[in-house]
Every structure is written in C-alpha cells, then in structure tokens.
C-alpha cells in the first residue's frame, strides 16, 4: 500500500488537566476552529475553555421520549378500541388509565434510544479508523494522556506557527500526524 503523505494535523501532549485547560484557552483565543482536546475522562469545565456550545442531545431525547409515549398510547388505543375491540372486566374499550404504565415505559424506552443513538450520531460513532490512531503516543489518551490536536484543514493552520503556539502553551511533545 503506498503511503500517503497527507498531514492530518499537529498533536500536542500536555502534562496534566490544568496545563491542558490553559492551552485550550490559548488555542481558542488564537481563533482555531478545526481542533479538539482529547482526555481520558471529561475534564470539568473544559468545554468553556474550548468555547464549545451546549450539546443538542437533550432535544433529541425530548422529541424521541414524547413520540415514544404518544405512539405507545396510540398503539394501545388502536389495538384495544379500534382493531379488535374486546370488553374486558367491564371496562370501556379506550380504558386510558390502564394504558398509563405501557405509555410511560415506551416513552422512557424511546427517550433512551434517543440519548444513546443520538449521542452516537452526533459524535459520528462508530468510527473505527481515525487519523490520530496513527500516533503511538495517542494510545495514552485512554490512560493518562492529555492532548490537543489542531487539524491541517483549519484556515489558521500553519505548521510552524501552530507548533509554536502549542509549545508556548506548555506542550511536552508536539508531533505531526499523517492522515
């Protein structure tokens, strides 16, 4: 397989969450857009330091949850009162109080699907290959490595200046990663 020479970007490692936090502030203020921080656990408050917006997962969950409950009720109503009406325990066909538990459970079920699969979709997971996995150093990200990667496609990206920014921000190592 011919080796591609395309560069994904620069990967910088930081010593601890505090260094990473301050470095993120610097990168944010330098005006980069295509960049990300990589941490073994969610570092508290890092989204502010990176200037990220709130997640939209809650909206997905709300829509999915309410449609789950609504569809769940409609299903019970249609099956019990429309498609095959049966008198059971002298209750009306549309005995809606008895339909509450199943309506609730289906709302929760679809809401959870919304949370999990919505999160996957927003994060574009599963994504088994990513350029950063080309870096051996990057394997530490799931143990104790704190990284910032700035992508080459960012309009502000300049191999020398970006590297200088990261080094100035306190990176212990900066390396170029192939795409």
């Amino acid at each position: 397989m011919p080796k591609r020479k395309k560069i994904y970007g620069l990967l910088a490692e930081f010593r601890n969450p505090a260094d990473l936090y301050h470095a993120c502030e610097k990168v944010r203020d330098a005006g980069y857009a295509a960049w990300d921080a990589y941490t073994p656990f969610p570092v508290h408050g890092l989204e502010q330091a990176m200037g990220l917006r709130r997640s939209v997962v809650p909206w997905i969950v709300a829509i999915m949850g309410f449609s789950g409950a609504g569809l769940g009720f409609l299903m019970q109503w249609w099956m019990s009162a429309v498609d095959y009406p049966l008198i059971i325990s002298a209750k009306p066909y549309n005995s809606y109080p008895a339909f509450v538990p199943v309506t609730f459970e289906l709302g929760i079920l679809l809401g959870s699907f919304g949370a999990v699969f919505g999160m996957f979709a927003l994060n574009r997971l599963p994504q088994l290959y990513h350029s950063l996995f080309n870096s051996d150093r990057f394997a530490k990200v799931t143990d104790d490595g704190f990284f910032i990667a700035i992508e080459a496609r960012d309009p502000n990206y300049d191999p020398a200046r970006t590297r200088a920014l990261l080094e100035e921000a306190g990176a212990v190592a900066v390396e170029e990663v192939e795409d």
Partner: protein
Amino acid sequence: MAASNKTLAERDPIDPLVGRYPLVEGDPSFSEVTAAVVRPIEQPPKAWWIFFLLSLGMLGIFGISVGYLFWEGTGVWGLNIPVGWGWAIVNFVFWVGIGHAGTLISAILFLFRQKWRTSINRAAEAMTIFAVICALSFPTIHVGRVWLIYWPLPIPNQMGMWPNFRSPLLWDVFAVSTYFTVSLLFWYVGLIPDIATMRDRAKSRVAKLAYGAFALGWRGSHRHWVNYESAYLLLAAMATPLVLSVHSIVSFDFAVSQLPGWHTTIFPPYFVAGAIFSGFGMVLTLMIPLRKWFGLDHIITTKHLENMAKIVLLTGSLVGYAYSMEFFIAWYSGNPYEAFVFVNRAFGDYAWAYWIMVSCNVITPQLIWFKKIRRSATALFILSIFVNIGMWFERFVIVATSLHHDFLPSSWDYFSPTIWDWGTLIGSFGLFFTLFALFVRYLPMIAISEIKGVMEKANPHHPSYGHGGHEGPAATKEETPEAAAAPAEPKAAVVTEEKATAPEPEAKASPEPEAPKSSEPTDAPGADPEPAAPVAQTPKVEAPKVEAPKVEAPKVEAPKVDAPVERPGEKAPSQAEAVKKPEGPKSPTTRGWTAFMDAADMGIEPPKVTPGPKPAATDETPDKEGKEDA
C-alpha cells in the same frame, strides 16, 4: 487514654464532619488507577477459575432443570391448585428486586451527585443486567408453553388478537423489558471509554479486535465528551423514574388482584424499598470478596461499604415498617379475610418462613447502627447474606401464604417445592454468577474514566496546579469565589492547628508526586493568587476538631464565656445556639473555638466533662491546648 492525643479527624478519619475524605485512597496517579482496575483482566487470579467453574456447574443444574421442565411440563414443579404461582414467580420477583440496586446506584446517586458511586456503579450495573436476565427467564419458563412466549408482545399472532393492555402482567412485560434495555444501554455507554482503554492496552489480536469493535473508535475527544455527558445525564434522569416504576409495576401483579394479602396500596413503595434493600445486599455480597481478591481496597474503600450499609439499614427499616403497617391495615380495615391472611402468615403453616423473613430483613440489619459493624467488611458480608436470604423469603411469604389459604377452605392446600424447583433456584444463581464471573474477567469492573474524574488531580483548578496564567473568562470566573472566601474567616486562631489534620484531601494534595506544577512561574513563593487557595481551605480543615469543645460549651463554660468578648466583633455562642446547631455553618463554630482559646489563654483550666457522644474528644483538646501554651 492512648487515643486522647488524637484529633477528631484522626480518630475517625474516614468520616470527617467537614470536608471530604478522598474517594480514592493513597493518591495514585491516573495510570496507576488504570493498572489497578485492569489487573484482574490482564492477570486473572487463580481464584477466578474456581469461582467460574463452580458457577458453571450451577449453571449446568439450571440447564438440566429447565430442560426437564420443557420435556415434562410444569407438573414437575410443586405447583398445585390454590398455589398456581410457585417458585418461578418468587424467583422472578426476587431477581428483579436485586436488579434494582444497579440502576439506583448509577442513576439516582448520579443525579444527587454522590461521587462515591463511581467505585461501585459499574459492577452494580452489571449485576443489574445479570439479575434481570435471571428474572426474565422465570416468567418465560413459567408460562409452560415457552414456544408461545411472544404472545404478550404486540406482534400479530395466529389468533389475530392483540395483548390485553389492561392486565398488570402485560405492564410487567413492558416494564421489565424496558428496564433491561435501558440498563443495558446505560451500562454500555458507561463502558465505552473503558473498553477503549482495554483496546489500547490489548496485546493479542483477538482482544484488539473485540475491544476495538465495542469501543466504536472512541478517542476521548472532548467534543464527544460533551455529548456523552449530556446523554449519560439524561439516561440517568430517565432511569430514575424507570427504576421506581418497574418494581411498582411488579407489585401491581399482586396489588391489582383481589386476593387478601396482595390487594394493598402499600405494595408499590414497599416493593421498591425491598428491591433497593435486596439489591444493595447483593452488591455487598459481591463487592466485599472482589475488592479483597483483586486488591481494590483503595478504590472501594471502607467508606463505600459504610455508605451502602447505611442504605441497607434505611431500606431494611422501611421494609420493617411496611410489614407492621400491613398488619395494622389488616386489623383496621375490618376485613375478616385480610385479617385471617395476616394471622395465618405469622402463625399458620408458613410461620417458619415468615419469621425467617422478619429476622433477616428487620432484625439483623439493625446491627448496622453500630459503627464497628458497618465498617467491618466481614460483618457486612455476613449481614448481606442474611439480607439475600430474607428477601427471598419475603417474596416466598407473599406468594405462598396468600395463595395457599384463599377464600374457600375446601380448596386450601400446602405448597412444597420439588427437587426441580430447587434446581431452577440454585441454577439461576449459577447463571447469575457465571455471567458475573465473565464480566469481571473481561471488562473493567470499576468505571476507570469516571473514577479518574472524581480524583482531586482531575480538577484543572485544583490548588496544587497553581493558579497563574488564566486568560479566558471562564477561568477567572471559577477562581474568584475561592479566593474571595479566604479573608472572610478569622484564621489567626486556627492556623496553628492546620498541620495536624492528616487525612484532609486539600492539605494532602500539595506534595503529590503526579502533579507537576505548570510551566508558568507560579511555583515561586508569593506568586500572586496561588497562596490564596490553600488559605481558603484552612477554615474547612479546622472545623471538625472544633466540634468537640463547642459541644461542651453550653454545659460548663457558661461562666467563662465573657472571656472572648475582648475580641471585637465576636460574640460568644449562646447556649441555645450551640445546642441547636452542632454542625452548623463555619462562623458559629469558629466563635466557639475562639471562646475556648481565650479561656485557655487566661489560664482557666478547661473543665473535665462527662463523656458525651464523643467522650475522648472532650478530654483531649484541653491537653493539646496546655501543650501549646507551654
């Protein structure tokens, strides 16, 4: 009195009255935490094989019992005509109940920001899933004709009919299967970052592929973490009403029927309390040996066990209350059938089962009131076994005693299990333990990424990192309240004692090896805001010890209180104030302390006090004072 020279914080280090005990002991580095958690996976102990093979043997019993049941039909069980719900339903309710602690720990404690949950939530969630698998297998085999088990689901069948949505049994189908699905998702979402850790550590090709596939390419991106944390929080928020609804609906199986002893409105809360009780019992049963075998005592600490024990005590007492309330209502309702069922429960054919239940669920958990017992792993392990037994008998008592003597004396009968009933019960434990053994062998039994997140060094604003060099608006915002808090406290009086408090996390963090200072020049003494943070901690550090003198103040100190009046702006604590708010906010505490200090300065001998709840504390502080004066 040997212990008399210790401070209160030293005497009870794991439960300081103010401040926090570290959730991970020994201040390991991040990679040491990873290594400790994955050690059982990378170098499984020999004991694992013993445990696994024993479980597998029990699982074999399950296979034989169920296979014979399918071959012969439900006649092999001890069911008879009044007792149509035998062990299968008892076991179902028992296992569903156990399955509740996992989601309780994960979801409810998460919403309440109880960070200690991170050490135990993973294993508890796994336990939940396996317990629900066991639970679901029982109604499945109980229907007799298992090949028609899809009838309760709303899918078209050969009769052209739909399920009856007015039946609690159908609600159960939806509740338990939703619960299983959501618990599985919750567990898996929590596992993704840790499976990625396993992927990055894997040596063999098979392991790399397997962990790699399930990690979904997780790379710890913070843009992902933002969505991830939001999804996790919402799952917790939805799982909390779900977990409460599931056991309520299970209790509807009984409560919505017309049978005396089942038809009671207390059942939903009573079942939920019982479920949490039995679930925490099972978590203790599993975690106490595991933390020992796998060397995880510093992550699952005595404090964690104690917290769980307190929940067992609370829910056990709630269950005991429910038992007595059932009796009260049976008498108060004036319903002779209801009254008969309860008298028969306690003194009839199944009195033996009833009293086993009461002793295990109500009486033995009361031992947890004693601090020695709730901090002893061995004692808690034994107690947790009693809880498991007691809760199984509770389900048995509810099912069997109400059914075997129903309205018509001519149809009364006695239920006794056959060998096949026993086989399925023992076998279901085999299923549970086999799954659990596989879990601890192949997946991290502690949430690695979450436990790192609750360690002190995970906080980018922790004082040990220094505070210089903030540029962003967010950083300044977070810093200010800490620094501002500092001058508000009268620190002169308390500073002398600061070094004595060993186990205080803030005090300990500064010399930690793993936290190198940032490259900014904050290390230099006197560098601007850095010293502010440690000072801000000082009043917090001090507070626990101050409790002791304050307690005695109302009793004996009354004539001496005038001493502190010298201090401008300070007021001596009035008796009522000190009595009413023994753990109140910092300022009255400090006042009590300064009052005491001033009394000592004037050469007044601090009085000996009759031993209160913390007798040693009252004696020792004066000793210390004397030394300091000298």
